[in-house]
Each structure stands twice: as structure tokens, then as C-alpha cells.
């Protein structure tokens, strides 16, 4: 078993707004191993993106604040680092890919500039060496004719190609951990399949640990080794991908998977979870999913269930599971 790169313990992140404290992430814990893709999956406003931003400590100023917990990377708690130390880690030890390739690249600088910038920032190489690094980063992401493409501007490239450039920027300093926030949501299905296959290879070559944030279960199935299902700021269940799909224990996980339309069979009616996700301003006291849960008991409304480990790496937070 490869060693653990990142350990998140009881992370609490809130946004302090005029309307009150929005508990975006309310106590989550998980770990990611070297060479492993860990999925953070859930519907909108479940806190998956906020978790990613908290790890990099890039929450929007001044509202977003990490109010509790630890984030340990190779033995160091990132929350105790100075701003300068944290900046050295961003881009070198941990990097991130954002969702929309159309807006992630600066329109007025060439692709080569934008990749070379992070290489120069972290590796302090002479200029000729920087160019070879840039070309190798572009080649790693399978971009054809990298020597000429690095002089192009972002608007001269298709969405898929730009997302590869963003990938090159992220991998240019061979980080230990890559956070990918919905990188393929804006891409077409066939281009998405290409992108996911590409990252499976990159992971084999570089052994980089990946936190893959998505709302699409198809993506989870094709690239993640282990998955955490999030709902309203908490992790409901964490398990290997096949366990999540085949033998989920938490009612929300099974309901969610059940309501995804399948391509390999014809359903005449889809299972749908009734009601609406809770507002993060006034969360229900007990289990967050209680108001919509088919197997709800009255204890669920009163108290939050503890996180119980029911198998190797399989944890669930639900009163139904002992």
C-alpha cells in the first residue's frame, strides 16, 4: 500500500456573510495515497469545491475562513504555515485544475509563457532549461507539436486542448498532489473520455495523488479508485469505487446512484429523491439528509450519526448502520 500523501482531519470551513455563517464544510476527514485518485462527489453546494480551495488555502477573502481541523501534507499541517511557505507549496507540491478551460488561461499571454512562469517560480532554472521543461510538460499532456504550440495564444485552441494546457501548468513542477475541480464538465463526452484516459496514464508515470471533484457518476466510475460522497458539508460515505456502486450502505449514496439514468438499460421511470437540499444557513440539527431520507428514524432528526468504519477503508455516517 503506497504511503499517505495528504491527511484531512475534521476540516471546518465557513463563509461569514451578512445573512449569517454559511457552514460550507462542517467537519470532514479523509486521506489520499500516492498514485491514487480519490473522488469527492456530490450535488451542488455540498462543499466539494470549498474543500479543494481549503486545502490550497485559496478561499475568497475576507468571507471564507477555515475555522477548524488539520490538513497534513507529508507530515506538515498546512494551516500552520506562513503565507510565504504556503505559496511555495502551491504549484510545486499541490496544484489544481479548474472547471472552465475558456476562462482559466490568461487571454493576453502565450501558452508557453503561462507554463514557463510556474517552472521559473519554483525551479529557478535558466531560460533555455525552462523551455525544455515547458515542452516536456506539454508532451506529458499529449499536446501534438509542442515546440510550435507553445507560441500560440489560448483563443487559438479548442476547449479540450486548453484544458490540456491547464493540465501542463499543473504538472509542470511534478506536484505530489493534484486537485481537479470538475475538469471535464465543460468538455464533450468523447473529449472527456480522452482527458480521463490521459490522466490515468499520467498517474501511472508520475505516481501523483489526485483529488477528483465531480458531480458526474460516470466520471467517478471511470477514473476514481476511492470515493467520498458528500451532502450539505459532510461526508456521508467513503469507500472503494466498486463498493460505492455495488454495495453502498448509506441511503443517500444508494438513492443518488439509483436516480442516475442508465445507458445500458431502458428504465420507464427514474427513482428520484423528493424535496430540496437544505440551506447551509440553518442546517437541521440531526443528520443533514434526514428530511429527505427514505429510511429515516426519529433519532436521525435529533443527533448527527458518528462516522463508523464497517470494512477496510469503508466508513459510513448513518444511524441505520451499526
Amino acid at each position, binding site marked *: 500500500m503506497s504511503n499517505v500523501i495528504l491527511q484531512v482531519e475534521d476540516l471546518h470551513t465557513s*463563509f461569514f*456573510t451578512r445573512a449569517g455563517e454559511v457552514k460550507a464544510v462542517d467537519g470532514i476527514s479523509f486521506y489520499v495515497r500516492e498514485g491514487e485518485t480519490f473522488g469527492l462527489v456530490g450535488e451542488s453546494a455540498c462543499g466539494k469545491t470549498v474543500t479543494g480551495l481549503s486545502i490550497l488555502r485559496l478561499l475568497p477573502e475576507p468571507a471564507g475562513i477555515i475555522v477548524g481541523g488539520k490538513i497534513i501534507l507529508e507530515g506538515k499541517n498546512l494551516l500552520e504555515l506562513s503565507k510565504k511557505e504556503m505559496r511555495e507549496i502551491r504549484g510545486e507540491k499541490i496544484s489544481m485544475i479548474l*472547471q472552465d478551460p475558456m476562462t482559466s488561461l490568461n487571454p493576453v499571454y502565450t501558452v508557453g509563457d503561462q507554463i514557463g512562469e510556474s517552472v521559473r517560480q519554483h525551479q529557478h532554472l535558466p531560460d533555455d532549461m525552462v523551455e525544455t521543461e515547458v515542452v516536456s510538460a506539454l508532451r506529458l499532456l499529449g499536446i501534438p507539436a509542442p515546440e510550435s504550440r507553445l507560441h500560440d495564444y489560448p483563443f487559438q485552441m*479548442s476547449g479540450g486542448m486548453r484544458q490540456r494546457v491547464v493540465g501542463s501548468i499543473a504538472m509542470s513542477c511534478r506536484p505530489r498532489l493534484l486537485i481537479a475541480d*470538475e475538469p471535464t464538465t*465543460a468538455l464533450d463526452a468523447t473529449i472527456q473520455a480522452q482527458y480521463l484516459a490521459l490522466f490515468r496514464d499520467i498517474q501511472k508515470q508520475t505516481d501523483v495523488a489526485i483529488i477528483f471533484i465531480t458531480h458526474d457518476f460516470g466520471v467517478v466510475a471511470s477514473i476514481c479508485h476511492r470515493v467520498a460522497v458528500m451532502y450539505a458539508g459532510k461526508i456521508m460515505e467513503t469507500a472503494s469505487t466498486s463498493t460505492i456502486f455495488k454495495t453502498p450502505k448509506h441511503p443517500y449514496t444508494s438513492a443518488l446512484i439509483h436516480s442516475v439514468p442508465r445507458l445500458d438499460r431502458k428504465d420507464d421511470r427514474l427513482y428520484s429523491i423528493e424535496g430540496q437540499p437544505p440551506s447551509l444557513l440553518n442546517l437541521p440539527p440531526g443528520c443533514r439528509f434526514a428530511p429527505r431520507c427514505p429510511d429515516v428514524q426519529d433519532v436521525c432528526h435529533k443527533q448527527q450519526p458518528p462516522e463508523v468504519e464497517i470494512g477496510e477503508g469503508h466508513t459510513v455516517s448513518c444511524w441505520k448502520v451499526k
Partner: protein
Amino acid sequence: MQEKDSDPETAAKPVISGLSRRARIMRKLTFIVPVIILSIIILVAIFADLAWLGLPDVRLAPYDPEKISMRDRLMPPFWDEEGSTDHLLGTDKMGRDILSRLIFGARISLSVSLLVILITSFIGTVLGIMGGYLGGRTEAFLMRITDISLAFPPILVAMLLAVSMGPSFTTVVLAISLLGWAPYARLIRGETLRLREMDFVAQARVIGTSPFRIMARHIFPNIINPLIIIMTLQIGLLIITEASLSFLGVGIPPPAPSWGNMVNDGRNLVDTAWWISTFPGIAIALVVMSGNFFGDWLRDTMDPRLRQL
């Protein structure tokens, strides 16, 4: 590139505006103070005298603004040893009471601004919406007009009209409005172009709604926010323009007590009778500042996206 499966989380992110406590108090101030100042000045302008009620001699101002009394000319404000409480803010070189002239000046400045705002916003909105939604000739015509209006600062136009039609209240209003609607048209056109691309306009066309009804029922209600914001910001600008015209002698004809005239009266007496120009200057600044503060506050609360106004 059509967006596939756009992740709803990014689209429905909760509005997070974490203003610190001090900033929040500042925001309240930028609302309350200007509103108080503006309402005082509006009341003063209305009740300067009750002529409009048929009682010409009942007035708020202590004296008739144009009554000349050479005996007490160039009297400093009351706190000065030569000053007296009869004329709280002193008198000008013709002995006219500065305070009364300020009060009546408020009526002139506000009425000019209000009238110009109504005219220019109406023309600007109509042309802006038609130019933005219908495009084609109206838009080309509009763009050429805005080019032309760049070369014609209001002051030049005003001078020409004042000289030809003789300086008067209507000349000033006409001069500023002649090209004053261009900024409204430009902004409303931009907003209309943005709204025209939105789905609900396409939806209205699908059910066969006429272009006129789309402009009136869908486009217009959605541009009221930016319109109100420009109007409040214009109050200050127009008062300065009116004052500048009077200062150049092409605005409201003396002896009418427009603030511009008053500053002009005291122009070369600055060292001996400083108060003649200073008090109208402060009055102008107060009104303009309140207008701008209130405009800023409105913009931030109504639609922060319109920051560039």
C-alpha cells in the same frame, strides 16, 4: 462551445459579501447622510418662496434675493466682527443677502438639473432600447451621434445657443439636453444588447410576442436599475455644468441668483470678500457629493455588476 452538464454548484453559488463591520457602518452612512442633505435642499428649493401658491411675499429666505442695498455692501458673515446677524452669511458687492440668494439659487439649480434629467433620460432610453434591440439603421445612427457628441462638449453647445437665443432658463436646459442624452443611450444600448441574448427574450419571440411588447414588457423593466443609477449620478454633473455656464456668462442671466452667477460675482474679490464665491461653491459641492454618494450606494445595493458607471 456549448456547455455540457454545467455544474449547477458554480451557477448557484451563495452570494458571499463579507463586508467587515466598519465597512458596513460606512455603507449605512453613505446612504443616510446624502439623503438628509438632498431632502433639506429640495425642501429649501420648494419653499424658497410660496409664489407658486400665489403668496409671493411669504418666503423662507430672509430677504428678496435681488434687493440691492448699497449701504450694507460687502458685509462679511455674522461671526466676523464687521458682520451682523441681519445678514448671516454676509452680502455681495451690491449688498444683496448671500443666504437668500443661496436659497433661491437652490431652486434654480435643482429645477435645471431635474428638467434636463427627465428630457435626456427619456430620449436616451428610447433610442438606447431601439438601437440595442432593433440594431440596423437605428444602431448605426446612434453610434454616429455618439461619435459626434464627443466633439461637442455641452459648454460649447450651450454658448452657441445662449448667444443665438439669448441666455435664459430654457436655453440652458435645451443646450445641455441637445447632446446630453448620448451617455444614457450608450449605456442603455449596452444593457439591451446583453438582455437581447438572454433566453427569456428568445422565449418571448417563440410565442409570437411583437417586438414592441418585448421592448416595453421585457427590456424596459430590466434596465430601470442602471437608468436610476445614472440619473442620480447625473444630478451632480448637471449642477456643475449649469454653474460653469453661468460662470462663463452664458448660463442663467444675472441678476437671477444661480449658484454659478454667485461664484462668478465673487470671482476677482477672492482676497477681499472671500465669502461671496465660497458659500455657493460649498453649496454646489454638498449637493453634488450627496448625489454621487447616493448614486454609489444605489448601484452597490441594486446591481453591483454596474460598477463601471
